[in-house]
């Protein structure tokens, strides 16, 4: 790609809910471990941000295997939030990030609202860039039938209580398994969230017809990957019209083109999940591809792309 000397390189940097990102391409929670697993393959400093695997108060063993099965253009997982717990995270995992110049967003989940608050308080003063409240893990049942993010009332409670407990930038990760995601996003905005991450996985399942058993030991799991992209994109589009806080678009992003669709639909940033498994360089290729697209289309600033969808009717 040729570029005249006077042309300034396009600006991919954004300010996301108060966090400065070099570019709008992050890696999604649970798909990039604690960063270190991919550090040999990916230059972490190039990423917009890393969202760490969801952390809970106590270490969690997670669900029994099998936990993964591939479906048409998708993956079902039922990890069940296996994680080292907040203390080990702070002591053993956080120090790793000091070597890198990349914003770290810590995803947290609790069985109760109090646990969310406690997690947020525990992370106060740590060298992290923001929090993501995971209210939408389909593999955990909080002692009841639904996830937090399936109910506007509990969503409001968690978000507003955590909001009071922390001054860190606060994202809320929502579930697509709802009738009206805009109303849940609005509740987050009202409760003081700085942004919403759309979307977590869809609850799905797969059956082995020979044994007549579910393939996942947990019966159901969360569906991710290219299969869900059209629905995720629609949700970003809807939520963009419903709230003013920034949106992180997530769901099936494999290419720069996919990421641009999300940005055009209204996402300030995007996060790559399953795409990391397919090709660890996906985030880097997406960043490069966005830059090339901007140069080709003479777009100076990525911000001008956000929500730039041209609808012939409304």
């Amino acid at each position, binding site marked *: 790609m040729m570029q005249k000397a006077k042309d300034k390189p396009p600006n991919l940097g954004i300010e996301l809910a108060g966090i400065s990102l070099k570019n709008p391409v992050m890696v999604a929670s649970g798909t990039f*471990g604690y960063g270190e*697993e*991919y550090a040999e393959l990916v230059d972490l400093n190039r990423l917009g941000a890393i969202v760490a695997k969801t952390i809970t108060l106590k270490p969690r*063993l997670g669900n*029994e*295997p099998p936990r*993964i099965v591939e479906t048409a*253009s998708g993956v079902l997982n039922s990890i069940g939030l*296996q994680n080292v717990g907040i203390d080990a995270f702070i002591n053993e995992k956080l120090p790793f990030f000091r070597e890198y110049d990349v914003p770290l967003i810590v995803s947290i989940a609790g069985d109760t609202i109090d646990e969310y608050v406690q997690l947020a308080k525990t992370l106060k003063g740590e060298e992290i860039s923001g929090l993501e409240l995971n209210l939408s893990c389909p593999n955990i049942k909080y002692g009841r039938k639904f996830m937090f993010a399936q109910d506007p009332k509990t969503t409001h409670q968690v978000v507003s209580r955590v909001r009071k407990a922390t001054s860190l930038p606060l994202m809320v990760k929502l579930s697509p398994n709802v009738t009206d995601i805009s109303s849940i996003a609005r509740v987050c905005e009202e409760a003081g969230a700085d942004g919403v991450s759309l979307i977590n996985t869809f609850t799905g399942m797969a059956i082995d017809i020979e044994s007549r058993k579910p393939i996942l030991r947990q019966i159901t799991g969360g569906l991710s990957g290219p299969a869900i992209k059209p629905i995720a994109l629609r949700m970003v589009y809807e939520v963009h019209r419903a709230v003013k806080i920034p949106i992180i678009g997530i769901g099936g992003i494999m290419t720069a083109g996919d990421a641009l669709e999300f940005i055009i639909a209204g996402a300030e940033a995007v996060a790559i999940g399953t795409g990391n498994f397919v090709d660890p360089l996906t985030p880097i290729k997406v960043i490069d591809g966005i830059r090339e697209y901007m140069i080709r289309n003479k777009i100076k600033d990525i911000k001008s792309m956000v929500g730039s969808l041209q609808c012939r009717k409304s």
Partner: protein
Amino acid sequence: MVQIDAKILVNEGIGPQRHKMALYAPQIGRQAKPGQFIHVRVSNNFPPLLRRPFSIHRVEGQKIEILYKVVGKGTEILSEKKRGEYLDILGPLGKGYRLPSATSKISDIILVAGGTGVASLLFLAEAISVANAELSILVLIGAKNREELLCEEDFRRLGCRVEVATENGSRGYKGLASDLLENYLPLSEDRPKPAVFACGPSEMLKRIGKISRKHRFPCQVSLEERLACGVGACLGCVVKAKGSSYTYKRVCKDGPVFDAGELIW
């Protein structure tokens, strides 16, 4: 661990639905240890969406080899690849077999291979015969039938003793490779226990694990689970292992090779 586009040097059938592929991958070959694997993107299209893992079968100069069986879409597409094409691979991944240390009292090695399990064990046999030339290696190979038997000659060429079992009795012992192992037991008290290394179907490994518990010999097994990332990030590939009560270990990173004793089966 590196990610490279490796040129396919050979991709040929070596038995019913069995293929051998050689890849130009000096960066991986240099680092590779027996029991480690590569994670292969079989197609830019999907399915298959996820990569597919294959044990490193041999390292020879600049090239590495894998040996695989066609069982589904991914391996089918792999088998159609032509020489000269490129494959996006990650490797070497995982923790391989722990070789007997020079000071150990082990004098006998037994390798038990079921089906394509021979793949990683041949690499292991080569490594042992170089590093621990004094050890005698017995290889027990199991397969459904004589057509599906793999690598017998390769092991012999390394100086291993080879015994064969087929389920239909069309060659060697009629039965399972794990039966062969049991036939060698109980071991006399006067000589040191053998070190057993096993790779094959999980039922076979389970059985061998049990035997090793009963007869108390050291035993490493190489497991297969459905992988996603292959690098330890997603926690998708765990197996139950002993811990305070229990814990989950990642096949792709903490394994694929485990001490049989640490697993909860």
